[in-house]
């Protein structure tokens, strides 16, 4: 008797869980949404001419991160006649990346990121609160179920990047 009751409760819970998956389909997985935001950041950023070599614009991210998988959906798309390429952050050297996307797993690699972006026109983007504090140019934050972002325009300007005023207007905080 006890066992049967238990089974029924569990079966009900399992059924509800499966049903709920369909109900929530209109919501977007966080990583996918972040990848789409990064695609927009790239669109609204202007690099100095000498920083863009060849026909591609390279985004560097850690292969271990979930965001890397989502960014694969952006790779190959064209932005201002340049194709977006995705490159593992771990073996990037200075000059390889136009965009560095750092997540929580990259906290220990911060000095390496600084070195890869130093002196070059590299847009640094993160979704990690610690790394925002460590001086990344664009920080993505989830608030009340919506994605927003903050921009350190001073730092971007120093690196020779021009961020469109349309993006700056939408940013929650601009420094």
């Amino acid at each position, binding site marked *: 008797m006890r*066992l049967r009751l238990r089974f029924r409760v*569990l079966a009900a819970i399992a059924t509800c869980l499966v049903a709920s998956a369909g109900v929530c389909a209109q919501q977007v997985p966080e990583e996918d949404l972040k990848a789409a935001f990064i695609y927009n950041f790239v669109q609204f950023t202007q690099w100095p001419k000498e920083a863009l070599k060849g026909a591609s614009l390279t985004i560097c991210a850690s292969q271990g991160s979930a965001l890397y998988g989502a960014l694969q959906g*952006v790779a190959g798309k064209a932005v201002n006649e340049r194709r977006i390429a995705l490159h593992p952050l771990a*073996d990037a050297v200075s000059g390889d990346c136009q965009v560095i996307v750092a997540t929580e797993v990259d906290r220990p690699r911060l*000095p390496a990121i600084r070195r890869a972006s130093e002196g070059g026109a590299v847009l640094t983007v993160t979704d990690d609160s610690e790394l925002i504090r460590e001086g990344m140019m664009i920080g993505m934050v989830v608030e009340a*179920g919506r994605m927003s972002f903050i921009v350190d325009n001073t730092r971007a300007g120093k690196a020779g990047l021009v961020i469109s005023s349309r993006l700056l207007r939408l940013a929650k905080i601009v420094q």
Partner: protein
Amino acid sequence: MRQMYLHATAAACLLAFAMGDGRAAVADLTELSIEQLMQVEVQSASKFRQQAIDAPAAVSVVTADDIRSFGYRTLGEVIGSMRGVYVSYDRYFSYVGVRGFARAGDYNSRILLLVDGIRQNDSVFNQAMVGTESPLDVDLIDRVEFVPGAGSSVYGSNAFFGVINVITKNGSDYRGSEAAAAAGNYGTGKLRLTHGAAGDGGADWLLSGSSYYQRGQDHFYPAHGGRADDLDSDRSGTLFAKLRTAELTLGLIAGRRSKENPTASFGQTFNARGSESVDESASLSAEYRKALSTALSLTARGYAQEYRYRGDFIYGPPLYTNRDEAEGRMWGGELQFTSTHFRGQRIVFGAEYRRDDGVRQKNFDVAPYVSYLDSRVSDSTRGIYVQDEIAFGERVLLNVGVRHDNIGDAPSATSPRLALIYKPLPQTAVKLLYGEAYRPPNAFERYYATDIPSGYRTNPNLKPETIRSRELVLEHALSPSQRIVASLYRNDVANLIAQQYDAVADRFYFDNVASVRAKGAELEWTGRLRGGVVARVGASWQRAEDGASGTRLTNSPARLFKANLSAPFRDEQLRAGLEVQAMSSRKTELGSVAPGFAIANLTLIAPKLARNLEVSASLYNLFDRRYFDPAGSELDPIDRVEQNGRNVRLKLSYRF
């Protein structure tokens, strides 16, 4: 019971494989304008934290979302949900068992508890407080990481079986006030008030206070042939403050708990009013982080902790109170440098100084006053350490570390660690780990002696205990949202310190009791699935045995099973979290058995029932199973302690 695991596991697995990870969605999203994207709802009610595949350990992580989803009330419940960990409760303190080790009278001194990088184990018992005695409210936790294995190569003493690393929330997580109230069975009530604010330039602060009360239950103990009436109350108050600027973090954690003891431990008179323990502590900490150059960064930490304990024990008739008092002040500092000067290498090196000042232990009869113990000692520890993480190309990572500690008059200790991490694929890591750790006897084990019936005597020959741990780990991401961890390990403990009982003299004492060896296997699958469903299923098998006789240790289950499943309903308006925990039987100190059990806990949350109001309801021990935890020898003649039956908690959180 077995059938129940099967259903829970089957449901989890079905969910896992029925849903893909849907990468195609990204391409569609890029068609939207950024203004439109900002209106899209993020599916992140329960975040699946990416774990560092490069870490030289098989790390477990539980986040604030998990704490809400599964209704965890204490840090012990949080870590008890993790791979290879189990927590026992004797209605006094909560004791953490790791990979088959859970020793009586241990007070968690073999686990190092860090909060925001600062050591919390006190200076008398070196206790990691994880139950209601913990001065940190779990609502303020952002995430908890558990790093199993010998961790002394970085952290020094007490990082014996593992390190619990608690990261607390920040002012920016609140940006306003929150009031929370909870009520539950056994006359339980809890209140919390929190305020957090974030200023310009990255500075923020958080202030929070909580108070908790539980009237408790009347417990029947067959060994005493009677019921302990109204002797189970649990009261606590805690305070937390944190201030952060770009480079500096200041923290304060303070708490006081008083717990009545219904078990008549240490030979007390059964069912006598007045038996209780009071634990108080206050810790201040400061952490300063600065990048000295592009290749060198500094972390400086300073901390001070005051700890006080009072235990009242009732003997007779005629009834009289015997009182234990302990206090200790601990302060210290650490300088840690991280260098990436050499290509492909990350070198961490540092030095720590810690002073345990005025560690005082007293034992006396209250009236008429008779003193049995008044001991006062001080101690200091100096440690230096270095660790190098060397990358050989993309695929191989070598992590080598060693720490040397000088501890007062005890022999110095050197603790090495070696980790080889091979990544044949970016999403796969094979880790070969070796580590050594030590734990010197704490002040209680060294100096506590009372010349009373069932009292303690000292043991001048007590030495530090040591452990050597070896582990082979496989971590593999099946997809960006699914991950498996498999581990095979072997631990060898030498000179293990355990509480012994000298029946002739009727005295407890601590001794280095021979050796212990443990081996085991762990397997865990974690998935963040479509529709916001998060699942984790894990099982572990272990055998921890006495080195000399080969018999299984007490309070050491052969098998553990855990499953956690959380899913949103009705557009995230409701979230359900189901947890199943099971373990096989455990031997008790008195030679009997605490039978194996499986329990389920269910939590329902409505994050926005009304504007700014979150309501959650939890049912613990859903099927009202009767189960027991083995008792320590100090509870003799009680061999096992019955745990709570089905109970409920209702919680409301209001933001304003």
